[in-house]
């Protein structure tokens, strides 16, 4: 464990291994998705649902690319110019991914609604394979049935790694991959609908897929913005306040010279920035005691990247001083 003047800067073995694994999965996903994009391009035809699923596939690359790019930055140590390190790059990448999903998903949704209102009948012709004339729709169904399997594997693998690394980009990425099969099934339903003469089923499927993209965009942009404007640190799935806040309060109040303690903790993206306020029992506090308190907090968890202890006469209201937070 390495604790320097302000906090921890090393990764424990478990996190180091998880990070290596996450990087491998992200590269695998990029490779897999590239193959599916090429496969779908071969059969995309006149189906709006297929086109939407295709664009969704391309958009699904953004979280992986922003994760890998952000990693290059967050590994750098703090400097005088960037005294908090570059951890927020992860949040910026998350925001960019969210906004991209939101805008492109929105324009696809508008496109499919316009198509439905104008009653545009999707045209799907035939192709000639080995001397036989085959409807292109069958190839669309075949390709989509093939590509449906991948996201199950990498989605669940990343979902296991995200909590270990406390990484919201990875969590969101895994979440989207796990829901990806709905997109694939919707596009198959759309194409088969066109096959039996129900032209509108294609537009409805496209609308369903684009609504999913918009929803992913809203979720991602919202999570990223809330962290960038420094809401109280929450768990990686955003389900509640992070339990570490309570553990810090508890740890500080165990110290004999501390009367009460409260914490402001923000999520820098994968690591935390902690400001702990302590009210001492007596009027004098030793430098050694303060340094021990800081060290004690940093030792609680690897995510304690940046810890400052502030001695105050009374706790600020906005700081949390419960030992169990939910």
């Amino acid at each position: 464990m390495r604790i320097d003047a302000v906090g921890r800067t090393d990764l424990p073995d478990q996190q180091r291994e998880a990070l290596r694994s996450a990087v491998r999965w992200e590269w695998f996903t990029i490779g897999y998705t590239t193959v599916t994009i090429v496969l779908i391009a071969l059969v995309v035809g006149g189906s709006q649902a297929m086109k939407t699923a295709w664009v969704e596939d391309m958009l699904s690359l953004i979280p992986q690319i922003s994760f890998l790019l952000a990693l290059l930055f967050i590994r750098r140590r703090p400097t005088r110019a960037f005294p908090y390190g570059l951890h927020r790059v992860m949040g910026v990448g998350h925001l960019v991914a969210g906004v991209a999903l939101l805008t492109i998903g929105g324009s696809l949704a508008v496109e499919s609604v316009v198509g439905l209102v104008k009653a545009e009948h999707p045209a799907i012709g035939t192709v000639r394979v080995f001397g036989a004339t085959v409807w292109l729709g069958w190839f669309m169904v075949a390709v989509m049935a093939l590509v449906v399997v991948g996201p199950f594997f990498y989605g669940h693998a990343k979902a296991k790694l995200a909590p270990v690394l406390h990484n919201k980009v990875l969590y969101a990425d895994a979440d989207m991959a796990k829901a990806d099969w709905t997109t694939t099934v919707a596009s198959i339903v759309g194409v088969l609908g066109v096959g039996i003469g129900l032209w509108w089923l294609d537009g409805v499927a496209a609308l369903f897929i684009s609504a999913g993209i918009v929803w992913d965009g809203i979720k991602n942009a919202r999570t990223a913005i809330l962290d960038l404007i420094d809401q109280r640190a929450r768990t990686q799935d955003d389900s509640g306040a992070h339990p570490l806040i309570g553990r810090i309060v508890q740890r500080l109040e165990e110290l004999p010279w501390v009367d009460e303690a409260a914490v402001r903790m923000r999520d820098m993206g994968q690591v935390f920035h902690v400001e702990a306020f302590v009210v001492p029992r007596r009027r004098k506090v030793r430098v050694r005691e303060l340094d021990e308190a800081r060290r004690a907090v940093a030792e609680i968890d690897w995510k304690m990247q940046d810890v400052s202890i502030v001695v105050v006469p009374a706790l600020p209201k906005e700081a949390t001083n419960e030992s169990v937070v939910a």
Partner: protein
Amino acid sequence: MRPRIVSALAVAATLALALTGCGIPADPDGSLDRITGGVLRAGASPSGNLVMVDGDEVSGVLPEVIEDFAAARDARVEWTVDSEEDLVDDLASGRLDVAVGGMTAQTPWAEQVSVTRAYPELPGANGADVVILLPMGENGLQAAIEGFLDEEVG
């Protein structure tokens, strides 16, 4: 993984072939059903040897293909001779079932009407990507015509 993909594709292709006979793809507006044993409303716009118009007589390579296609479906052809733009309008508003002329795969009308695959092997096409125009999304009719052309020239 690769042999599995190939075999999956093969299964899908076989399945597709088996199901092609079962009325998939179908026409949203039932064009092919209406034409079979009835009337095929065809539009023609003159273009070199492909489509020739002499008074009410329409002849050439493409009208012949349409006549043969209709004959194979016990249908009679009713010809309308007009400009390309008017033919496209008629297709879009459901007054025509097919239109032929010198249109190629690069035709700008693809926004308003369905365009078949290109048949550069047609006699008189001189290697140009000759296509036939259809009402948008009448996929049953398109599959039937493309299948017929594949048999004839492919």
